[in-house]
C-alpha cells in the first residue's frame, strides 16, 4: 500500500511518542510510589498507532489496563497523562483515575480500564449512539488476548453483529495474559477465527508492522463507516516488559522468545522499511522525531510535578451529578 509522506510521518511520531512516554513515565510514576497500577505497552506501539490513524476526535475508543498507547494514539496530551499518573489535578481525570482509568471525552477516549474487557461494551454503546443519531462515527474496542476470553466480549460481538453497529473489536494479542500463555486459554488458533461465529470479518495482522495494521484497520473502519457492521481485528504483538514492573517475565517465557520479538521492534521495522523504500523519510527525520518525543517527556514530567495535588474536598466531587456531600460523609467520621 502506498502511503503519503505525512501519514508516514504521523505514524512514526505516534509510535515514538508512545515509546518515550512508557520508557520515561512508568519508572517516574514508580518513583512517586504509584507503580502498582501501571502497565507498560512498549513493544505494542504499532497497534494503537495503525488503528487510531483512521479515527478523528469524534470517533471513540475503549481501552485496557495497558492503555497509554491508546490514549496517545487517540490524541490525549502526554503532559496531561503524566499528571494523571502522578495523581495530580491537571490530569484529565483530575488525579482520581490514574493509569488504569485515563479518559478524555474531548478526544473520544472512553477510558483505559482496570477490568479486563471492561471497556468493550462502552465502545459498543458509543457505536449505538452513532448509529441512532446518524453521526457517522465509529468506535474501536481494544482488548488483549486474555480479554478475548471474557464473556462480555462474546456477548458484545454477537450483539454488535445483530445490530450491525459501527464498531471494531481490536485484539492486541501479545502472547500472554499476565503469566498465562495465549495458547493455554484459547480454543482456536487465532482470536480472529472467532469472527466467523459472529458473522463478521476477521483480520489477522502482524502487530509489529504498523503499515500492516494501518491497512487492515483501514478496511475494517471503512466497512463500519459505510454501515456494513462490525469486524474483529487481531494484531499479533509482544510486550517487552513484565505484566507490571514487579513481574519478571523470564519465569514464564524464554529469553530466545523475547529476543525474537525485540528483533522485530515496530519502530525499527518502520525505520528499515523507510530505508528500503529509498528514504521517503530519512533516518535523520526519524531521529529528529525521537528527540522531540524525548524532550516532550522531559516537559511532561516537569509539568506533572508542578501540577497541584487534588484538594481534600475533591474526594466528594464527581461521585454523582447530584447528591448531597453530607450523605457521603454521614456516619463515616471523615476528617474533611
Amino acid at each position, binding site marked *: 500500500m502506498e502511503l503519503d509522506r505525512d501519514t508516514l510521518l504521523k505514524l512514526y511520531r505516534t509510535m515514538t511518542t508512545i515509546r518515550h512516554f512508557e520508557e520515561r513515565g512508568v519508572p517516574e510514576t514508580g518513583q512517586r510510589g504509584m507503580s502498582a497500577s501501571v502497565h507498560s505497552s512498549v513493544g505494542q506501539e504499532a497497534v494503537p498507532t495503525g488503528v487510531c490513524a483512521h479515527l478523528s476526535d469524534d470517533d471513540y475508543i475503549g481501552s485496557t489496563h495497558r492503555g497509554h498507547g491508546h490514549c496517545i494514539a487517540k490524541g490525549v496530551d502526554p503532559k496531561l497523562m503524566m499528571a494523571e499518573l502522578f495523581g495530580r489535578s491537571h490530569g484529565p481525570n483530575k488525579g*482520581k483515575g490514574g493509569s488504569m482509568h485515563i479518559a478524555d471525552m474531548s478526544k473520544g477516549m472512553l477510558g483505559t480500564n482496570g477490568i479486563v474487557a471492561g471497556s468493550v461494551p462502552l465502545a459498543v454503546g458509543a457505536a449505538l449512539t452513532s448509529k441512532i443519531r446518524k453521526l457517522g462515527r465509529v468506535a474501536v474496542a481494544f482488548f488483549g488476548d486474555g480479554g478475548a476470553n471474557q464473556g462480555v466480549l462474546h456477548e458484545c460481538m454477537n450483539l454488535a453483529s445483530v445490530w450491525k453497529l459501527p464498531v471494531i473489536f481490536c485484539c492486541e494479542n501479545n502472547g500472554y495474559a499476565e503469566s*498465562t500463555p495465549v495458547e493455554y486459554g484459547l480454543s482456536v488458533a487465532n482470536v480472529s477465527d472467532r469472527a466467523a461465529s459472529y458473522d463478521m470479518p476477521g483480520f489477522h495482522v502482524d502487530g509489529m508492522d504498523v503499515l500492516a495494521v494501518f491497512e487492515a484497520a483501514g478496511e475494517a473502519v471503512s466497512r463500519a463507516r459505510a454501515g456494513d457492521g462490525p469486524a474483529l481485528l487481531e494484531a499479533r504483538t509482544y510486550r517487552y516488559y513484565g505484566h507490571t514492573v514487579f513481574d519478571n517475565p523470564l519465569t514464564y517465557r524464554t529469553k530466545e522468545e523475547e529476543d525474537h520479538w525485540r528483533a522485530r521492534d515496530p519502530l525499527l521495522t518502520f525505520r528499515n522499511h523507510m530505508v528500503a523504500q529509498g528514504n521517503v523519510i530519512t533516518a535523520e527525520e526519524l531521529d529528529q522525531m525521537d528527540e522531540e518525543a524525548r524532550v516532550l517527556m522531559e516537559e511532561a514530567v516537569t509539568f506533572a510535578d508542578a501540577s497541584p495535588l487534588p484538594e481534600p474536598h475533591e474526594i466528594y466531587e464527581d461521585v454523582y451529578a447530584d447528591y448531597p456531600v453530607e450523605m457521603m460523609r*454521614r*456516619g463515616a467520621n471523615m476528617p474533611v
Partner: protein
Amino acid sequence: MTTLTETPMLPPPGETRELQTREAINEALIQEMRRDETVIIMGEEIAGGAGREHLGIVDAWGGAFRTTRGLIQEFGNERVLDTPLSEAAFVGTAIGAASTGMRAVAELMFVDFIGVCMDQLLNNAAKMRYMFGGQVKVPFVMLTRIGAGFGSAAQHSESFYSLFSHIPGLKGVCPSDAYTAKGLLLAAIRDDDPVIFFEHKGLYGDTCPVPEEMYTLPLGKARTVRPGADLTIVGISKMTWVAVEAAEELAKEGINAEVIDLLSVSPIDYDHVLDSVRRTHRLLVVDEDTPVCSISSDICARVAEEAFDYLDAPPSRVTPPHTPVPYSRALENIYLPNAERVVNTARRLMA
C-alpha cells in the same frame, strides 16, 4: 472482664514458629490438599505459565500474590488449574464441581472483579441448597483480595465484603493475620457451605506465630485482641490493627478500649460484640468498607436493637466515605480510616 487467655482464638502461648500471612495461606492449602484429595483449586496465575511444562516452566508465579506457590508441583494440573481469563466460567465451574462431589476453591484475583461473575455466587452458590430442598451441599470457597492504600484506584482497591454478607446463603471471613488465615481457611474448605475468604493485600507480609499442625477456627466467631473496660472498638481485617494502634494511643489518655477482631462477616458474631458493649457501654466500628448498608452499619443497628439500655453514647463508626476509592495518594490517605480518626471519634464518645 475478658482476658486474653480466655479467648481461644489467639496463637497458643509458647508457639515460636512465625509465618507471614501469605505463607500461612499457602500452608493451609497444601496441608488440606494432602489430607483430602477431593480438594481442587483454580484461578488465574494459580500456577502460572500453564501448558509450558515442556519448556521447564511449571510454577511461574504460584499466584498473583504467591499464595499458591508449589501447589502444582505437588498436586499436578488436574487439581491445580490455571484458568483462561474467564471468571464467570471458572467460578461457576468450581461451584458446579463443589455441588457434585469436589471441594472446590476458586480464586478471584481482586474482589473488584466480582462484577463479571457475581451471578454464579448470587444465583447458584447461595441459593442451590435452599431451592433444591436441601439435596445439595456446596463446599465451595472463593479466595479473593481486598484493601486500599496502594495507589491502585477505584477498580483494584475495594473492600466490598458487605455485598456478600447481604446475600442469604453465603458465608464470609476476613482473617486479620497469619494465625487466623490458616485456621479460617482450613475451616472454610471443610465447611459444607459456600464461603468467601477475603485476603487483605496489606497483611500478606505481616508475621505472627502459627502452629505447624492443622487447626481450624470456627466460622462466625469474633475474638478479642485487646481487653478493655471503657469502650468497645470492633475492627475488621486490617482495620483491627488500626483499632489496636488507636487503643494504645487512647490508653495514654487513660481511656481503656477493648478491641474485637470480627473475623467473620457472615455470620457476624453479634453476641461477642454485645457482651463487650454491655460491659463498656460504648461502640465504635472501624471498617474499610464504605458506610452505607454495610457491616459497620449492621453492627451498630444490632447493638442499638439489643443493647440500647446499656449504651452511654451513640454506636459510631470510622469508615471511608460513600465514594469510590480515589487514585491520588493525596485523596486515598483521606479516604482510608486511620488511628487518628479512630482516636478522635473515640474521644468524642467518651466525652
